């Protein structure tokens, strides 16, 4: 099973104006920060709202979901003692808000799924996309990951001792995937594996690299900036290396105490 990566964009790379990326004011005004961040990354990746109908699967991944809206509704519920609560943060708090808003923005009725599996969310969504492409169920997949950091989560996780060695992060990253090489293809994913046990850097090389020149991106719990879908940003980094001339990158992700995942990316050949 393999697939080709087309355009890939992280939220730091979003150039266009928010109102241009999300022209529907009625949708935009209800969006929290993370929804704006993720949807604008997705639209920038596709090259505009008019391109949304061209994808036939929308897959999103998030470890934490729309935290700010969840917290807002919860705080209101407690302060107002369950009376006269605003519905907007509740309806925007669901984990599939971003995927749903992209579909709504582009009037796209296609397959639309959201994976919420901590540090595996991105890889799980990628697996779904790769299976759909292999089965001929999709020809062009939009895949993205997002997570937001909010002050109370930072406080809580600090109390849990998370930030002794790294800092709290957030981000979003979207890409397109196709089953065959296209004009916009930049790299290919040739393997996605979910090993049961942790692997050392050496073991990763031995087991997954097909060439001695393969570069390894080895991510255990030593990220500088940490959030559940951080591996999507690392995936983007691997794609950049391929674009710069590297022929193979092995990406090992085991950053948040779940089981590891391994991805092998190659140049187009």
């Amino acid at each position: 099973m393999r697939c080709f990566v087309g355009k890939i964009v992280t939220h730091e790379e979003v150039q266009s104006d928010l109102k241009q990326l999300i022209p529907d004011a009625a949708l935009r005004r209800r969006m929290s920060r993370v929804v704006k961040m993720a949807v604008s990354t997705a639209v920038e990746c596709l090259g505009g709202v008019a391109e949304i109908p061209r994808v036939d699967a929308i897959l999103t991944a998030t470890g934490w979901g729309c935290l700010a809206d969840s917290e807002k509704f919860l705080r209101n519920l407690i302060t107002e003692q369950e009376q006269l609560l605003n519905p907007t943060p509740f309806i925007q708090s669901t984990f599939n808000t971003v995927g749903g808003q992209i579909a709504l923005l582009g009037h796209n009725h296609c397959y639309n799924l959201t994976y919420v599996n901590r540090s595996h969310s991105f890889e799980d969504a990628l697996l779904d996309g790769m299976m759909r492409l292999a089965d001929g169920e999709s020809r062009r997949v939009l895949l993205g990951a997002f997570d937001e950091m909010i002050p109370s989560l930072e406080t809580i996780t600090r109390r849990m001792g998370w930030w002794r060695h790294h800092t709290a992060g957030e981000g979003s990253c979207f890409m397109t995937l196709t089953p065959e090489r296209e004009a916009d293809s930049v790299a290919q994913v040739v393997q996605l594996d979910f090993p049961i046990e942790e692997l050392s850097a050496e073991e990763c090389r031995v087991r997954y690299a097909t060439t001695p020149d393969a570069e390894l991106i080895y991510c255990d719990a030593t990220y500088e900036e940490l959030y559940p879908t951080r591996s999507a940003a690392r995936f983007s980094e691997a794609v950049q290396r391929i674009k710069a001339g590297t022929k193979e990158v092995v990406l090992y992700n085991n950053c948040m105490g779940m089981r590891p995942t391994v991805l092998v990316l190659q140049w187009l050949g």
Partner: protein
Amino acid sequence: MRIAVTGLGVVSALGVGVDRNFAALAAEQSGISPEPRILKTTHRLPVGELKLTNEELHRMCGVELKEHLSRTALLGILAVREAIEDARLASDARVGLVSATSVGGMDLTEHFFEEFMADERRGRLRDVRMHDCAASTEAIAAHCHIRGYRTTISTACSSSANAILQGMKLLRHGILDAVVVGGTDALSAFTLNGFKSLMILDEAPCRPFDASRRGLNLGEGAGYLVLQREGEHARDPYCYVAGAANSNDAHHQTASSEEGNGALLAMQGALQMAGVDPSAVDYVNVHGTGTGNNDLSEGRALLRLFGDRVPAFSSTKGFTGHTLAAAGGIEAVYSALAIARGVRYANLRFETPIAEHGLVPEKHHQTACAVSTVLSNSFGFGGNCSSVLFTK
């Protein structure tokens, strides 16, 4: 390659286990109670609540109280364990889990936040450890000895139908040899108040597909199936999952389109994958929440798909309430039982058809029916529509 349903597990307001649920369905005994007894809330609204405390659930699961699992995880453990035992599945690295939830550990987070809001140094951390959705999946896997690939899906009220769809693919691609699929959601003040703020909670027991319907009742529970490739199972299958599809209504964040576009596409997709003609469908377990919007929109989608020959259908939410991410799993268990035992369930409290489409659901429990093809619908926020087709 056919995908067989070889194990069933369910927990709902009707009780713990397949037998209790089926007995209540057959006796037309609703699980909706006039108000919550376990859930802490000021609202006196009818709910489909399992009348067991978290302490009692820990004991039933054989989990020590100090583990302090979320209610969502506990309900999931009970249902997954039943499904695995039912399928006579051995613990193996090739057995996986695709679990759905929409509230995750919110029931515990609610307790934490009350203290945390007063003083950010306060609130017991063990009350937030299980906040995220994957925490329930990991707890279920650990306590049910599931060692293979596992993931968590959250697409609001269609979540566990999508878990079934993804489980099928994992088997077809040979990534797993057996997969437990379904979902779990506990009642929480968060969701109860959420649906209240949308003004779609009925103050009386819900009346799906009735002209006088006033909204839904919130429920809780878990429902899981064991799926295996045909010929690789230890016991005779209940039925097969012949098709499943997801489609987006792309109409509104919470409301369904008037004509039920997403619903129609999902049902058509499931039939198409299975290569089954609409005329072959014997029974539809509809989403049928009891809200004005859903039952009108879903009814129209049924008419568009089946024309003037809409098959027998019913919503079982009058028994269980709307169990959100668990609904697709619980109703998949009911659908499998409908085929295996030749029954169609009652749509409780139906009296008058909706004027706009005039559809009449099954009013009473029907036995000794030839039920070989069942469609099960689940629709959620974000326009997320899914349909699963079960065949004999």
